[in-house]
Protein backbone atom coordinates (compact mmCIF):
# COMPACT_ATOMS: atom_id res chain seq x y z
CA UNK A 1 0.00 0.00 0.00
CA UNK A 2 1.15 3.53 -0.75
CA UNK A 3 2.52 5.50 2.16
CA UNK A 4 3.32 9.12 2.85
CA UNK A 5 6.48 10.20 1.06
CA UNK A 6 8.78 12.88 2.40
CA UNK A 7 11.83 14.39 0.80
CA UNK A 8 14.58 14.85 1.45
CA UNK A 9 15.13 12.33 4.22
CA UNK A 10 18.14 14.19 5.56
CA UNK A 11 19.09 17.82 5.21
CA UNK A 12 22.04 19.74 6.55
CA UNK A 13 21.97 23.53 6.49
CA UNK A 14 23.91 26.41 7.92
CA UNK A 15 22.41 29.02 10.22
CA UNK A 16 20.40 31.69 8.38
CA UNK A 17 19.94 29.47 5.31
CA UNK A 18 16.58 28.35 3.97
CA UNK A 19 15.15 24.85 3.63
CA UNK A 20 12.19 23.35 1.79
CA UNK A 21 10.66 20.08 2.92
CA UNK A 22 8.24 18.20 0.71
CA UNK A 23 5.42 15.84 1.54
CA UNK A 24 3.38 13.62 -0.77
CA UNK A 25 0.27 12.30 1.03
CA UNK A 26 -1.38 8.96 0.49
CA UNK A 27 -3.57 9.09 -2.65
CA UNK A 28 -7.10 10.34 -1.94
CA UNK A 29 -6.11 11.77 1.44
CA UNK A 30 -7.25 15.38 1.48
CA UNK A 31 -5.64 16.55 4.71
CA UNK A 32 -1.97 17.09 5.48
CA UNK A 33 -0.38 17.84 8.85
CA UNK A 34 3.15 18.93 9.69
CA UNK A 35 4.80 18.10 13.03
CA UNK A 36 8.19 18.93 14.49
CA UNK A 37 9.90 16.49 16.87
CA UNK A 38 12.99 17.62 18.76
CA UNK A 39 15.40 15.13 20.34
CA UNK A 40 13.65 13.23 23.12
CA UNK A 41 10.45 15.24 22.61
CA UNK A 42 6.97 14.36 21.48
CA UNK A 43 5.81 15.59 18.06
CA UNK A 44 4.52 19.16 18.10
CA UNK A 45 1.86 20.26 15.65
CA UNK A 46 2.92 23.00 13.25
CA UNK A 47 0.26 23.47 10.60
CA UNK A 48 -2.40 21.60 8.65
CA UNK A 49 -4.17 21.85 5.30
CA UNK A 50 -7.53 20.57 4.17
CA UNK A 51 -8.40 20.65 0.49
CA UNK A 52 -5.45 22.98 -0.21
CA UNK A 53 -6.53 25.55 2.39
CA UNK A 54 -4.79 26.09 5.70
CA UNK A 55 -7.05 24.58 8.34
CA UNK A 56 -5.13 25.05 11.59
CA UNK A 57 -1.91 26.55 12.85
CA UNK A 58 0.12 25.54 15.88
CA UNK A 59 3.37 26.78 17.32
CA UNK A 60 4.92 27.49 13.95
CA UNK A 61 7.49 30.32 13.83
CA UNK A 62 6.82 33.24 11.49
CA UNK A 63 10.00 32.20 9.67
CA UNK A 64 8.19 29.08 8.51
CA UNK A 65 5.47 28.92 5.86
CA UNK A 66 3.70 26.09 4.16
CA UNK A 67 1.21 25.39 1.44
CA UNK A 68 -0.67 22.56 -0.17
CA UNK A 69 -0.75 22.35 -3.94
CA UNK A 70 -3.41 21.27 -6.42
CA UNK A 71 -2.02 17.72 -6.47
CA UNK A 72 -2.31 17.70 -2.62
CA UNK A 73 1.41 17.58 -1.99
CA UNK A 74 2.63 20.04 0.60
CA UNK A 75 5.82 22.00 1.16
CA UNK A 76 7.18 23.45 4.38
CA UNK A 77 9.47 26.41 3.79
CA UNK A 78 11.84 27.41 6.55
CA UNK A 79 13.90 30.58 6.39
CA UNK A 80 16.59 32.18 8.58
CA UNK A 81 17.32 28.78 10.07
CA UNK A 82 18.43 28.62 13.68
CA UNK A 83 20.26 25.91 15.58
CA UNK A 84 17.05 25.18 17.48
CA UNK A 85 15.28 24.22 14.25
CA UNK A 86 17.29 21.00 14.16
CA UNK A 87 14.67 18.28 14.51
CA UNK A 88 12.73 15.58 12.76
CA UNK A 89 9.91 16.99 10.66
CA UNK A 90 7.01 14.67 10.00
CA UNK A 91 4.22 15.01 7.55
CA UNK A 92 1.03 13.05 8.09
CA UNK A 93 -2.03 12.60 5.94
CA UNK A 94 -5.58 11.68 6.77
CA UNK A 95 -8.76 10.94 4.84
CA UNK A 96 -10.99 13.24 6.85
CA UNK A 97 -14.08 12.52 4.83
CA UNK A 98 -14.25 9.15 6.55
CA UNK A 99 -15.03 10.78 9.89
CA UNK A 100 -12.18 9.37 11.91
CA UNK A 101 -8.88 11.11 11.89
CA UNK A 102 -6.20 8.54 12.35
CA UNK A 103 -3.10 9.92 10.74
CA UNK A 104 -0.56 8.21 8.57
CA UNK A 105 2.92 9.54 9.12
CA UNK A 106 5.77 9.74 6.68
CA UNK A 107 9.32 8.66 7.50
CA UNK A 108 10.30 12.21 8.35
CA UNK A 109 12.99 14.65 7.27
CA UNK A 110 15.89 15.00 9.67
CA UNK A 111 17.04 18.62 9.54
CA UNK A 112 20.39 19.51 11.03
CA UNK A 113 21.31 23.18 11.31
CA UNK A 114 25.01 23.86 11.86
Amino acid sequence: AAGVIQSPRHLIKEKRETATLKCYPIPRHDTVYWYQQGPGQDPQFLISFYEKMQSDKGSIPDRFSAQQFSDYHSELNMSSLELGDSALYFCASSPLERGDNEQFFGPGTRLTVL
Partner: protein
Amino acid sequence: SQKIEQNSEALNIQEGKTATLTCNYTNYSPAYLQWYRQDPGRGPVFLLLIRENEKEKRKERLKVTFDTTLKQSLFHITASQPADSATYLCALSASGGTSYGKLTFGQGTILTVHP
Protein backbone atom coordinates in the same frame (compact mmCIF):
# COMPACT_ATOMS: atom_id res chain seq x y z
CA SER B 1 -3.40 24.86 29.42
CA GLN B 2 -3.92 21.41 27.94
CA LYS B 3 -1.75 18.74 29.46
CA ILE B 4 -1.27 15.10 28.57
CA GLU B 5 0.74 12.81 30.84
CA GLN B 6 1.79 9.26 30.18
CA ASN B 7 2.39 7.31 33.35
CA SER B 8 6.06 6.65 33.01
CA GLU B 9 8.91 7.37 30.73
CA ALA B 10 9.96 3.73 30.65
CA LEU B 11 8.30 0.39 31.28
CA ASN B 12 10.18 -2.91 31.39
CA ILE B 13 8.33 -6.23 31.30
CA GLN B 14 9.01 -9.87 30.60
CA GLU B 15 7.94 -11.50 27.36
CA GLY B 16 4.47 -13.01 27.57
CA LYS B 17 3.22 -10.56 30.19
CA THR B 18 0.68 -7.80 29.65
CA ALA B 19 1.99 -4.28 29.30
CA THR B 20 -0.31 -1.54 30.58
CA LEU B 21 0.35 2.08 29.65
CA THR B 22 -1.57 5.03 31.07
CA CYS B 23 -2.49 8.35 29.55
CA ASN B 24 -4.04 11.12 31.66
CA TYR B 25 -5.14 14.51 30.43
CA THR B 26 -6.36 17.80 31.88
CA ASN B 27 -8.02 20.93 30.50
CA TYR B 28 -9.15 19.04 27.43
CA SER B 29 -12.34 17.50 26.10
CA PRO B 30 -11.13 15.29 23.28
CA ALA B 31 -13.40 13.68 20.79
CA TYR B 32 -10.81 11.09 19.91
CA LEU B 33 -7.97 9.46 21.76
CA GLN B 34 -5.39 7.63 19.72
CA TRP B 35 -2.36 5.47 20.39
CA TYR B 36 0.68 5.42 18.16
CA ARG B 37 3.87 3.40 18.15
CA GLN B 38 7.15 5.05 17.30
CA ASP B 39 10.49 3.38 16.68
CA PRO B 40 13.72 5.44 16.94
CA GLY B 41 14.13 7.85 14.05
CA ARG B 42 10.88 6.80 12.38
CA GLY B 43 7.43 8.26 12.05
CA PRO B 44 4.64 7.35 14.48
CA VAL B 45 2.47 4.43 13.36
CA PHE B 46 -1.26 4.48 14.13
CA LEU B 47 -2.46 1.63 16.35
CA LEU B 48 -5.92 2.33 17.75
CA LEU B 49 -8.49 5.12 17.93
CA ILE B 50 -11.27 5.38 20.48
CA ARG B 51 -14.07 7.96 20.45
CA GLU B 52 -15.33 9.88 23.46
CA ASN B 53 -18.54 7.83 23.55
CA GLU B 54 -16.71 4.50 23.50
CA LYS B 55 -15.42 2.66 26.57
CA GLU B 56 -13.20 0.03 25.04
CA LYS B 57 -11.66 -0.97 21.72
CA ARG B 58 -9.69 -4.07 20.80
CA LYS B 59 -7.47 -5.05 17.92
CA GLU B 60 -5.65 -8.36 18.02
CA ARG B 61 -3.38 -8.22 21.13
CA LEU B 62 -4.14 -4.55 21.76
CA LYS B 63 -6.86 -3.09 23.94
CA VAL B 64 -7.58 0.53 24.79
CA THR B 65 -10.04 1.92 27.33
CA PHE B 66 -11.26 5.49 27.59
CA ASP B 67 -12.77 7.00 30.74
CA THR B 68 -13.82 10.61 30.10
CA THR B 69 -14.83 11.04 33.75
CA LEU B 70 -11.37 10.13 35.02
CA LYS B 71 -9.83 11.74 31.93
CA GLN B 72 -7.75 8.65 31.42
CA SER B 73 -6.96 6.00 28.85
CA LEU B 74 -5.31 2.66 29.44
CA PHE B 75 -3.50 0.84 26.65
CA HIS B 76 -2.82 -2.87 27.03
CA ILE B 77 -0.59 -5.17 25.02
CA THR B 78 -1.25 -8.79 25.91
CA ALA B 79 1.21 -11.65 25.38
CA SER B 80 3.93 -9.08 24.82
CA GLN B 81 6.88 -9.85 22.57
CA PRO B 82 10.35 -8.32 22.25
CA ALA B 83 9.18 -6.92 18.90
CA ASP B 84 6.68 -4.78 20.82
CA SER B 85 9.58 -2.79 22.27
CA ALA B 86 9.11 0.84 21.13
CA THR B 87 7.88 4.21 22.31
CA TYR B 88 4.10 4.42 22.63
CA LEU B 89 2.46 7.80 22.23
CA CYS B 90 -0.98 8.82 23.39
CA ALA B 91 -2.59 11.56 21.29
CA LEU B 92 -5.79 13.57 21.61
CA SER B 93 -7.79 15.46 19.02
CA ALA B 94 -10.84 17.69 19.03
CA SER B 95 -14.17 17.05 17.37
CA GLY B 96 -14.67 20.05 15.20
CA GLY B 97 -13.77 23.51 14.08
CA THR B 98 -10.46 24.35 12.54
CA SER B 99 -8.62 22.24 15.12
CA TYR B 100 -10.29 19.08 13.89
CA GLY B 101 -7.70 16.42 13.38
CA LYS B 102 -4.76 18.20 14.96
CA LEU B 103 -3.04 15.78 17.36
CA THR B 104 -1.68 16.76 20.74
CA PHE B 105 0.76 14.12 21.94
CA GLY B 106 1.88 12.92 25.32
CA GLN B 107 5.57 12.58 25.95
CA GLY B 108 5.52 8.84 25.29
CA THR B 109 6.36 5.70 27.23
CA ILE B 110 9.36 3.63 26.20
CA LEU B 111 8.36 -0.02 26.46
CA THR B 112 11.04 -2.71 26.61
CA VAL B 113 9.98 -6.35 26.49
CA HIS B 114 12.71 -8.68 27.71
CA PRO B 115 12.98 -12.21 26.31
